[in-house]
């Protein structure tokens, strides 16, 4: 390779590496701010800021969803396996909101330890399947569950 071209090649590689390292360090330093939400275990451990609007994300615990009669208020619990947060939300939930599915709520912790949400979003997972396959899988899971008991 011609020495001038080699020099230019080294300069190009230097620019790419330097930019990547710089952006990498910035994103590493800001990693907690880049996360969209806190997990329930982070909140129970006191890692989330108090007295300010935050987001909490986790799996909706099966059987935890209660609707308050005569209002749009819904109470449910989200978990990440290690911690649990009880959420109160007044409003219309997205269609994909369901038990055993992930949800992300925006709001503030109340004095009584529940999380008062002003917005609830459903988080979809990366699995796509036709309804018949989903039904068959559910039946197979139930059967395996019965066999274990």
């Amino acid at each position, binding site marked *: 390779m*011609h020495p001038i071209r080699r020099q230019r090649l080294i300069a190009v590689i230097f620019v790419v590496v330097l930019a990547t390292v710089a952006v990498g360090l910035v994103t590493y330093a800001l*990693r907690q701010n880049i996360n969209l939400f806190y997990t329930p275990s982070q909140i129970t451990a006191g890692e989330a800021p108090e007295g300010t609007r935050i987001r909490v994300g986790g799996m909706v615990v099966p059987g935890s969803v209660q609707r308050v009669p005569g209002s749009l208020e819904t109470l449910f619990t989200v978990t990440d396996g290690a911690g649990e947060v009880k959420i109160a939300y007044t409003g219309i*939930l997205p269609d994909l909101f369901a038990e055993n599915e992930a949800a992300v709520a925006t709001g503030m912790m109340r004095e009584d330890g529940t999380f008062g949400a002003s*917005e609830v979003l459903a988080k*979809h997972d990366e699995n*796509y*399947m036709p*309804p018949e396959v989903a039904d068959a899988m559910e039946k197979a899971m139930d059967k395996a569950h019965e066999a274990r008991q």
Partner: protein
Amino acid sequence: MARTRPIMPAWFHRLGSPKGFYSMTTPWLPWLAAASLVLLIGGAVWGLGFAPADAKQGNSFRIIYIHVPSAFLALAGYYVMAVAGAIGLIWRMKLSFVAMKAAAPLGAALTLISLVTGALWGKPTWGTYWVWDARITSMLVLFFLYLGVIALHYAYTNGEAAGKAAAVLALVGTANIPIIYKSVDWWYTLHQPATIKLTEAPSMHPSMFQPLLVMIAGFYCLYALVLILNIRAEILHRERGSHWVVELARSRRS
């Protein structure tokens, strides 16, 4: 000092000259156009009309057949642009800056398509059009990087200076591509992790996944076709005073 020996074959040099590229790619165009047409129409009819609806999302999942291929090509197209820029900076090949300029609006359009289709899908699925999570925000940064490369080309009257400046911006912007790709694994985001993985089977039923593969192949063909057409148009513009372009115009008219 030892003389440098040629490391590239003859066709590479032919492809590197604007006139050589123009005449070499002319017979490719009908094939690429036919392949894109067949794959895109076939994939769209298969995906929108015959693939089963998703168990949870119903029919709204079908936007994946546009969203994922355009997002794929928006990322891959950025590397096309950045590598063309690097070749232009190092070897000072005329054609590589032309290719970089041609790739920018195409990549910007694909990024915009993936952002808009994602927002349209987000409303019925998540409950919102837009969330500032790592995936969506880094994709927006990609859109601005493409716009920056386009803008730099118009900021200079001198083509060579514009090419150099745009190439440096394109190279710096490559830092964003792994961030977009890995954002859903590195941080908590609303956007779900990748369905199509390099090392594992896709987490999608084959009856839904096969039309998606056809659409991705169709988008690749369309990308190649539009990129080549853009490059050819830019070549004709830059060489408009040269003998071969004048001859070409004359032969077309008669």
